[in-house]
């Protein structure tokens, strides 16, 4: 049970299961936070955030990490293609004509005070939704 404690003092700590060093809530948070997320655009260019489930099965944090890992490895297009295929097959996304993978930076204090816009945003990948892809 105590053996994982050594990870706290390693340069590159490694977590495991079921014996963990429980690194959650330990990172030093900066004021700005960069996140990668999914957006859908309708025919008029209006955007809406797409839920993590569009990118893969599993829990929110698992899929979020998988997206980060794929985008970090240069596979943003593949993520975008998977999301476009998912969106194309769901009637609740019928208004979406384009999906994008974005990376935005948010000011946490401002965000929680009501200013929800990112301080910067970058399109990592973009792809039209082809309805023929509907499953």
């Amino acid at each position, binding site marked *: *049970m*105590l053996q*994982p*404690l050594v990870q*706290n*003092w390693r340069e590159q700590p490694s*977590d*495991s*299961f*079921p*014996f*963990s*060093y*429980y*690194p*959650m*809530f*330990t*990172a*030093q*948070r900066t004021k700005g*936070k960069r*996140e990668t*997320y*999914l957006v859908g655009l309708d025919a008029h260019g209006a955007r809406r*955030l*797409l*839920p*993590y489930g569009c990118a*893969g*099965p*599993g*829990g*929110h*944090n*698992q*899929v*979020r*990490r*998988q997206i980060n*890992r*794929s985008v970090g*490895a240069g596979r943003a297009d593949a993520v975008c293609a998977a999301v476009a295929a998912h969106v194309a097959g769901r009637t609740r996304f019928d208004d979406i004509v384009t999906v994008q993978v974005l990376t*935005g930076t*948010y000011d*946490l*204090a401002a*965000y*929680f*005070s009501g200013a*929800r816009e990112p301080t910067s945003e970058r399109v990592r990948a973009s792809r039209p939704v082809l309805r023929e892809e509907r499953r």
Partner: protein
Amino acid sequence: MSPAVRLALVRVVVGGFSLAYLAKRRKMLRRVAGTDPRLFSPVGVVKVLERPLPVPVVEATVYATLAANVAFLLGWRHRCSGPAFAGLLLWQLSYRNSWSMIYHTDNLLVLHALILGLSPSADAVSVDALRGRAPAQSGVGYGWPIELMNAVTTLSYFVAGIAKVAGPLGGQWISGESLRGQVAVDGLRKELMGDGAAPVAYALYDKVWLWRAMAAGTMVVELGAPVFLADRRLARLWAAAAFTMHWAVLAIMKIKFRYQLSGAAFASFAALQRGPAGSRAVGCRRR
């Protein structure tokens, strides 16, 4: 000495929780197994694998785990089904956590199942006991699994507490700023990709004193956990505090530590044999 009934009731509580938990997730476990193999990052016992297993094999192990779970819950042929269930659950949840994210909500459930599966936790309140397969209940051997479960539970919180003060902030973690930052980041992520942050997080964001109080409370519950084991009443007080902490986490972050929230994680701290179920079980044995 703890009676066999107390240990058996803990088995029933933990086995019942895990059965409901796994049954509800059986389809999700199958879908996760079909994820892009490049995202496979094996952890724990699953490290023996170099690549993911075929989906039908994973599906078969899910159903095998469920079957073993039913046997464990019923206390049927526990000498075989107990270790089998514990091993299969360890494998199943390690595999589920081998896809780029370790869910710390599963650790205690697996550790408790291992202790209960490898101990005489089906000598009462079980099919084995009804059929006369369980050995005579002398009392010897029924206390240590409970004590071990309590120690494992408190140590997991202690390890989590050490990680906080050993992190980049050190003792400054208690200032509450870090906790507030963590909650804010989690909330932002839920807004961007999930079902939104908890409204409570917005309402509390500017109340720094409250974050400081919550950080201090967290440190008492986590770093102080092993100290509370010194006395049975203190240990129960600690379990109640940890249980409350998880409900607070749910309210503020919408993070569901289901095993803890259900109370099953703290069943070993309770004198279950004094409750109605325990009285009935003891009564049955006496008749």
